[in-house]
């Protein structure tokens, strides 16, 4: 039945192709001066509903009636271009857009087709990389994730944390892709920064609901991050010196206007954040931390119809601590690393049909190790590691038969290799080396999809279907995932939107809730652990205002999640079996599965143009879980359940030389499980049917996640001074203050002791991480 439906859909496609007296205009849209391909450019005929948008590779295709044509190419932050010509045959036009300087007194007003009311896609956040560079951040370290966290429906983990929770989903339910390659741990410095270097990024798009069929494999969000291609006209670069890291980006042509490269790297210094560790340098103790990452990409335009790309990311974090004496040294290490590589081939079959083929590699691994070495040569090493490796191929096609239809279809195949847990001990002090059996699990995930974006006068519809399957340990799962998006223009600038999405996810992240270390384990679905799936419905209104120019939207959503997993009560990644040489670590024994639901309302008022830009966002939401084996089967709040979330962002540019910015955020407290009291642990002695005292106390926690941490709020401010340098470069000095009024926000709680008049009393203490933190950075563009 399913196969018949898909076959029928493909067979009826040709009926859409034929149209008399019409021809197609297609080509690429690029940035003038760099040749950078522009994503999401609006191409339309003014005063009509006729238009299209450039795809992820800057390609567009629009079919029009023969005759005189006036096509407008419009993109935020760029001067619109109008092309007038007589259309008689299929035509290839590559258009170059110039960046606009809004400070010259010209206030760009949103064109009709750029308005949110006109956009079919709902529940989407597009982050202009320019804004990422203007918003004040912790220690001057620009971060796209920190900007995403300021949007409604998206929240952070804890203080300073770059972890992202979208509409009540857990972090593993976010599909984070960098040039099509999944990134399995997108965080540096224990989650305080994301791995994405703003210098190398072209675009960031986050979809929270209403997922098109081309995306799959995760329940809660898709974060599509595209790297810059590199300037194919002239050499250039950017660099910065900040308090914790320095960065350098270089780009330029390899063959002018044909091939280019970009390479960007950064590395932290062992300064501010590691100063506290240096205190331990006394008496032989030492500790330190660093991270570095490198993005590189080359592309080559073989012809008008073919272009190839090769992009790669490598990043590594390392924390170490130890103790050294003249005759021995003891060392502890924790490191984690991501590697991705993507080869892509764009091919334009004709003016209506565009295809991309990708071959992708992605690997993530974390490693916890301890070593001991004596001068005599005796030594031992202990090593615990976990990881995931993907090799995949993907084929996507864009077909634009006419102006009413934009068809996307494709297929993907992923080979996942999981190593949930492995343990090894070696050393001269041991009679023999010990190795736990590293359970490696091979699996195949594949999908095919078809979606059609249909324009019907005032209404737009995106109807799609995705079929996915997953093969592991001789077990085959499959899923048919319908997707639907609908928008209707109530007036010229006011629309109603609705969406439905069924999502299936075959991989899980087994997370420890109490701590923020990168020790979570990626594990696959098996015959015991079922794939997680969700259904989400959303309904919204979008309105654009013209004087002044701003947009407002409100969206309500309801998401139902099934087969989500958690550690059983009392279990951890170090549970029994993980260190047993004779036994494979069987994660299925320490986990349990349940369901969750999340619902809420999101408001967003945003101004993208003018001297004063920014937004105000508010989210009212609820996220609740129910697991048969947790909290005695009773429903409980998710730890990241946040009732109220407010963010206000303002960027003001009074002149060309200065930019002021400020943000203020507020979030209700996290739900945690807190021990309130201790009582005598007595259980049953089955040997003699008697009471059996355990000899220790147990805690009264109340219900799981029944205690609310204090609310979180913070204000950051920053000012940037820009200067054109004599030799042609541009310099920017940024001064910013993180947590301006030094709010002591909760990071975690612990039981401490308070002494009053010689009497000690146990009390609950809150640890806060960052008071007011000033920072100064210098950026140079050349």
């Amino acid at each position, binding site marked *: 039945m399913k196969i018949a439906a898909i076959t029928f859909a493909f067979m009826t496609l040709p009926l859409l192709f034929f149209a008399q007296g019409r021809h197609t205009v297609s080509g690429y849209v690029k940035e003038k001066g760099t040749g950078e391909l522009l994503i999401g450019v609006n191409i339309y005929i003014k005063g009509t509903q006729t238009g299209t948008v450039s795809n992820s590779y800057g390609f567009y295709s629009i079919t029009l009636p023969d005759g005189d044509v006036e096509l407008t190419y419009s993109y935020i932050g760029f001067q619109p271009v109008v092309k007038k010509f007589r259309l008689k045959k299929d035509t290839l036009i590559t258009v170059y857009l110039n960046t606009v300087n809004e400070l010259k007194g010209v206030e760009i007003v949103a064109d009709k087709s750029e308005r949110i009311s006109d956009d079919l896609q709902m529940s989407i956040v597009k982050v202009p990389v320019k804004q990422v560079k203007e918003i004040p951040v912790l220690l001057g370290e620009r971060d796209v994730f920190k900007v995403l966290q300021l949007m409604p429906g998206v929240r952070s983990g804890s203080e300073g944390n770059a972890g992202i929770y979208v509409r009540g989903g857990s972090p593993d339910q976010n599909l984070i892709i960098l040039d099509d390659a999944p990134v399995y741990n997108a965080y540096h410095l224990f989650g305080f920064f994301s791995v994405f270097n703003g210098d190398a990024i072209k675009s960031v798009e986050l979809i929270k609901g209403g997922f098109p069929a081309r995306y799959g494999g995760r329940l809660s969000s898709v974060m599509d991050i595209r790297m810059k291609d590199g300037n194919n006209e002239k050499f250039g670069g950017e660099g910065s010196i900040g308090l914790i890291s320095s960065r350098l980006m270089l780009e330029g042509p390899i063959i002018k206007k044909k091939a280019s490269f970009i390479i960007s790297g950064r590395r932290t210094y062992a300064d501010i*954040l590691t100063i506290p560790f240096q205190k331990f340098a006394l008496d032989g103790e030492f500790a330190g931390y660093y991270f570095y990452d490198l993005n590189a990409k080359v592309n080559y335009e073989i012809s008008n119809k073919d272009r190839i790309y090769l992009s790669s990311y490598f990043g590594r974090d390392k924390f170490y601590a130890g103790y050294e004496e003249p005759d021995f040294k003891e060392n502890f290490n924790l490191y984690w690393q991501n590697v991705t590589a993507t080869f892509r081939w764009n091919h334009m079959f004709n003016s209506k049909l565009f295809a991309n083929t990708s071959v992708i590699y992605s690997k993530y691994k974390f490693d916890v190790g301890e070593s001991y070495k004596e001068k005599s040569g005796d030594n031992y090493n202990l090593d615990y590691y976990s990881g995931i490796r993907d090799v995949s191929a993907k084929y996507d096609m864009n077909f634009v038969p006419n102006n009413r239809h934009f068809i996307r279809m494709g297929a993907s195949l992923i080979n996942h290799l999981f190593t949930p847990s492995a343990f090894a001990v070696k050393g001269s002090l041991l009679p023999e080396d010990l190795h736990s059996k590293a359970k490696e699990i091979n699996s195949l995930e594949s999908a095919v999809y078809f979606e059609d974006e249909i324009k019907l006068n005032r209404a737009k519809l995106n109807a799609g279907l995705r079929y996915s399957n997953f093969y592991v340990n001789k077990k085959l799962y499959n899923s048919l995932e319908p997707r639907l998006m609908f928008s209707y223009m109530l007036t010229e600038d006011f629309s109603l939107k609705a969406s439905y999405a069924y999502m299936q996810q075959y991989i899980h992240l087994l997370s420890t809730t*109490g*701590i923020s270390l990168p020790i979570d384990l990626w594990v696959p679905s098996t015959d015991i652990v079922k794939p997680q799936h969700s259904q989400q419905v959303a309904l919204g209104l979008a309105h654009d205002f013209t004087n002044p120019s701003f947009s407002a939207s409100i969206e309500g959503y309801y998401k139902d999640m099934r087969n989500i997993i958690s550690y059983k009560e009392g279990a951890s990644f*170090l549970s029994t079996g993980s260190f047993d040489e004779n036994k494979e670590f069987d994660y299925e024994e320490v986990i349990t599965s349940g369901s969750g639901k999340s619902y809420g309302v999101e408001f967003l008022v945003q101004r993208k143009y003018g001297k004063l830009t920014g937004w105000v966002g508010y989210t009212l939401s609820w996220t609740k879980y129910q697991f048969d084996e947790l909290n005695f089967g009773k429903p409980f709040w998710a730890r990241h359940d946040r009732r109220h979330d407010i963010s206000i962002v303002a960027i003001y540019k009074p002149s060309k030389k200065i930019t002021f910015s400020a943000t203020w955020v507020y979030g209700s407290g996290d739900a945690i499980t807190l021990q*309130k009291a201790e009582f005598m642990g*007595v*259980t049953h002695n089955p040997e003699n049917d008697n009471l059996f*005292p355990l000899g220790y106390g147990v*805690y009264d926690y109340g219900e799981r996640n029944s205690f609310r941490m204090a609310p979180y709020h913070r204000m950051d401010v920053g000012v940037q001074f820009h200067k054109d340098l004599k030799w042609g470069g541009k310099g920017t000095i940024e001064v910013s203050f993180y947590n301006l009024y030094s709010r002591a926000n909760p990071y975690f709680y612990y039981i401490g002791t308070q002494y009053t008049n010689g009497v000690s009393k146990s009390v609950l*203490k809150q640890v806060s991480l960052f008071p007011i933190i000033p920072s100064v950075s210098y950026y140079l563009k050349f």
Partner: protein
Amino acid sequence: MKALNKILIISLLTLVFSCEKTVYVEVPDNDPKLVTQTFLTTDDVEKEIKLALTWSVPLYSAYDYSFKDEKDADVYIIKNGQKHKLTYTNPSPMGGTNGYYKIQSSSVGVKTGDSFSLEIETRDKKTKITSQTTVPDKPVYSLSYENKTVNEYNENTYSFVFKSLNNNDINYYFFICKGYFTRQPGNIIDSVNMYSFSETNYYKIAKGNSAILSFVSYDEVDSVKIKVFHTDEAYYLYNSSVYNFEGDNPFSEPSPIYSNIDVGLGVFCSYNTDYQILKVK
């Protein structure tokens, strides 16, 4: 493993305390509560009903972690509307300084299917806690010997198939096992308590479903005696939650301790037993 655990904790604390600022937090609902534990079974099995009664210690008050008995309370077990008073006894069979409340099982009459209420009130009438339990049926099951395996440490693992036949949709069981063997020289019959190879001996099994039970012994045994406890849900939830309790280990998930005591903590639950002897050699 413990060393690695410690190092991880130290590293984590080193990182986070580098920028700490401490404030004090008010915790609501922070008064001491009465805590009781009672495990009822039929009077033909256990002659005495024993009940522990102590006070919990709020963690955010005086720095004193001793669990004090409530010696001066009115403690009643109620069957068919008839109250049976339990009396305080010290010292406790549990050891230490804590006493317990007791009553002869036969004077109450504890039979399969009987329902009981618990009512405890302090003499100052300020605190009253209550609970209920119903004694489950005797275990109905089939049990068969499956096989024996020996690992490189000469541990003998004996596996059995247990099938639940009790007439409830979900049944709760607990098992213990004793092995018997002949010690040489002298042909002396000896016994050994066998431990479970699985994580826990608490089982939740649907009617008609089976579970594999594995018991381990260093001694090769000739036969085993498996004692089957058919328990109520409260017994299962309380004992398994205490079993899962990991204290302050930050790497482990918190394990809330089950309670079916209204306005208090602990458990008032019941079970029924049976045993079977199987030859395994």
